[in-house]
C-alpha cells in the first residue's frame, strides 16, 4: 500500500466533479492546496463545500476528475490516508451519551495511539482545549463552544497532518470563534495543513488562501489580500441621508452591479471597465436631487465574493 507523501501540495484536485442525480454539486473544480497553511472554502450553503471536503476525505466518489490527498489517490487509496487526516464534520459527530473523557479515550484507541502515549495525549488535549472542567460531563450536555472544542480535540488526538473542518463555527458564539481560530493557528504553527469551510467573511479573511465557491464552481482563488486588491470591480462608498432614494438611482445605472447598505453608507460595486466612475455617479445623484459624498474605497472580502459569484448582478 502507498504511503502519504511529505512533499508537494497537500491536496491537488483536477476537474473534480460530483453529481447527485441531476444536480451537479461540484462542477469541474481544479485547485492545489499548499501545506502548513489554513486554506478556506468560502461559499453559501449549497455551493459544494461539504461535498468537496467529503471527496477529499474519500467519503464520496467523484463522478469525474481526480483528486490526490497527501500524494494518495482518492477514494482508491483512502484507507492509507486514515491515520494522517482528521475530519471535523459539520454536525457534532461524537457520542452524546459518553462523557468528554470517554469520547477522547474511545478515539485514542480507534486511532491506536501507543498505549503509553494515550493518557498523556488525552491530558494534553484536555488542557489545550480547556475541557478540564467538563471531563466527566456527557458530550450531549455541553455548550456549543465546548462541543466544538471537544470535536477539535478529538480529531487532533492522533496529530494528523491534514485537518478538514466543515463549517466548524456555525453554532458558536463570537468569543468561542476567536478562541477556535487561535487554536487553528497553533496547529498550523506545528505544521498541520487545515482546510476549513465557512460562510463567515471575517473567518475567510483569516485564511492564508481562499477558494470562493458558487453553485459548485470555483469562482475565485488566492490570498484574501490579493483577491481584494485584484477584484474585478470598482467599489464606491456613498454617504447620504437619502439612502433609499440613492439606492434606487444607483440600481438604475447600467454600470452598477450591486448596491448594499451599511448604516448611512451605501456600498456600490461597479463594472471594472466603468470610466470616470466617481464623476458619473456624482452627476447621476445630483440630477436626482440627492446630496452626499461619493468616494472610491478599497474592496472588502464581501465585495470580492459578490463580484466573483455574480450575486446581485443585473
Amino acid at each position, binding site marked *: 500500500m502507498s504511503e502519504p507523501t511529505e512533499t508537494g501540495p497537500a491536496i491537488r484536485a483536477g476537474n473534480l466533479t460530483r453529481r447527485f442525480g441531476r444536480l451537479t454539486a461540484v462542477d469541474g473544480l481544479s485547485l492545489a492546496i499548499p501545506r502548513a497553511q489554513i486554506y478556506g472554502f468560502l461559499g453559501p450553503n449549497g455551493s459544494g463545500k461539504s461535498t468537496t471536503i467529503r471527496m477529499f476525505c474519500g467519503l464520496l466518489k467523484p463522478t469525474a476528475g481526480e483528486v490526490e490527498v497527501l500524494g494518495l489517490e482518492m477514494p482508491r487509496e*483512502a484507507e492509507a490516508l486514515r491515520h494522517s487526516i482528521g475530519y471535523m464534520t459539520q454536525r457534532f459527530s461524537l457520542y452524546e451519551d459518553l462523557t468528554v473523557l470517554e469520547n477522547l479515550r474511545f478515539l485514542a484507541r480507534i486511532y491506536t495511539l501507543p498505549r503509553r502515549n494515550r493518557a498523556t495525549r488525552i491530558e494534553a488535549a484536555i488542557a489545550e482545549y480547556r475541557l478540564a472542567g467538563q471531563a466527566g460531563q456527557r458530550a450531549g450536555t455541553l455548550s456549543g463552544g465546548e462541543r466544538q472544542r471537544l470535536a477539535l480535540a478529538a480529531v487532533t488526538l492522533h496529530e494528523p497532518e491534514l485537518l478538514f473542518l466543515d463549517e466548524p463555527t456555525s453554532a458558536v458564539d463570537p468569543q468561542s470563534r476567536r478562541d477556535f481560530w487561535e487554536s487553528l493557528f497553533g496547529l498550523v504553527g506545528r505544521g498541520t495543513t487545515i482546510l476549513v469551510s465557512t460562510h463567515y467573511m471575517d473567518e475567510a479573511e483569516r485564511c492564508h488562501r481562499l477558494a470562493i465557491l458558487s453553485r459548485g464552481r470555483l469562482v475565485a482563488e488566492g490570498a484574501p489580500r490579493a483577491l481584494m486588491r485584484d477584484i474585478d470591480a470598482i467599489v464606491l462608498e456613498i454617504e447620504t441621508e437619502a439612502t433609499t432614494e440613492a439606492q434606487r438611482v444607483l440600481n438604475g445605472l447600467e454600470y452598477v452591479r450591486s448596491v448594499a447598505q451599511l448604516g448611512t453608507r451605501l456600498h456600490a460595486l461597479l463594472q471594472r471597465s466603468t470610466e470616470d466612475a466617481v464623476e458619473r455617479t456624482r452627476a447621476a445623484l445630483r440630477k436626482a436631487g440627492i446630496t452626499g459624498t461619493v468616494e472610491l474605497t478599497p474592496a472588502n472580502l464581501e465585495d470580492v465574493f459578490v463580484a466573483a459569484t455574480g450575486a446581485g448582478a443585473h
Partner: protein
Amino acid sequence: MLRPIVRMLAIAGKEVRQLRRDRLSFGMIIGIPLLQILLFGYAINFDVRGLDAAVADLSGTQDARRLVAAAEASQVVKLRGRVDSAAALEELLNDGRIAVGIYIPPDFARRLEDGDRPAAQLLVDGSDPIIEGVARGLTRLEPPGRHAAATPEPAAFEVRTFYNPERRSAVQIVPGLIGVILNLTMVLFTAIAIVRERERGNLELLITTPVATPELMIAKIAPYVLIGLVQVTIILLAGVYLFDVPVRGDLTDLYLAALLFIAATLSLGLLISTLARTQFQAMQLTVFTFLPSILLSGFMFPFDGMPAAAQRIGEILPLTHFVRLVRGILLRGTDLSELMTPVYALSAFFAVTVTLAILRFRKRLD
C-alpha cells in the same frame, strides 16, 4: 496488541457503555423475554376451555339435561344461557355472544332410541379455526341413556402423544419462543445500533478513522451475542420453573444452537442496517422480516401443513431451523450432531447475509 483488536475492543466497550446508559434498551433486553414468556406461557393456550355456549332444549327431557351437563363437565363449554329456538341460538352466534350453540330438537328422545342419526346439534362459530376444532371434540361425548349394550365401536386409531403427554401448550411454545424472542431482539438491536450511529452523524466521523468495515461490524454486534445468551437463559429458566418445560437434551448443545442462531439473526440485523436510512425504517424492516418468521417457521402452525410455496419461504428463515433444533434438543433430547441439516442451513444463512452486509456497507457516504 494487534491494532484491529484494539479498535474492536474500543468499539465493543463503547457499545456496552452506551447500552448501560440507555435505560430503555437495557430494559428491553430483560423486559422483552420476560413479558413474552409470561404472555405466551399464560395467555396463549391451545387447550381451549370455557367457550361461551347457550342451549336451546326443545325436548325438555332428563337425557337432554344430562347431555348438557356432560358437555359442561368437559369444561370445553361454559353455559351462558338458555333460549327456546334454533333461530335464537343462531342470533347469539351471529352477535358473537356465544361460540357454541347446543340445539336439542323436540324429538331428541326418539332420535336417541333410533341411534342412526345424531340426536342433537352443535352450532359452532367456524370463524376461529381452533374453536371449531375443539367444539368438534364435543361430538365424542357419550350419548346419555343409549343403552350400555350398544358398545361403542373401537376407534381405528389410538393417539399416544410423545414428548408432551399432557399436551400442555407451554411445552410446545416455550422452546420455539426462545427463537422468536431472539429473532426479534437480535435483529432489532443490531439494525438500530448501526443506523443510530448513521442518523446521529457518528458514522461520518468513524468512517474517516482507520477502523475497517469488518472490524466495525464484528465489534458492534459482539456485545449483542452475550445479550442473546442472557435472554436464552432467562427464557429457559422461566420455562423450566414456571411452566415445567422439560430439558431432555444437553444444555451445551442448546447454547451452541442458540449461538449459531444469534449469529444468523445478528447478521440479518446488520444487513438491514445497510438498507435502512433511519431508525424508523430499521424497525419497519425488522417487523417485515419478523412476521413471516413467526407465521411460517412452524412456531405457530405446523410446518408440514403449509402450502409448498410457504414452506419454501419458511426454509429460508433462520427461525424455522432454530425451532427444529430447539424442539429436538429440549423436548426430544436429540443430540446436536443428529440435527446437522438445520445447523448447516443456519450457517449458510449467516455466511450469506454477513457477506452481503459487508459488501453493502462501504466506508463511504454515497
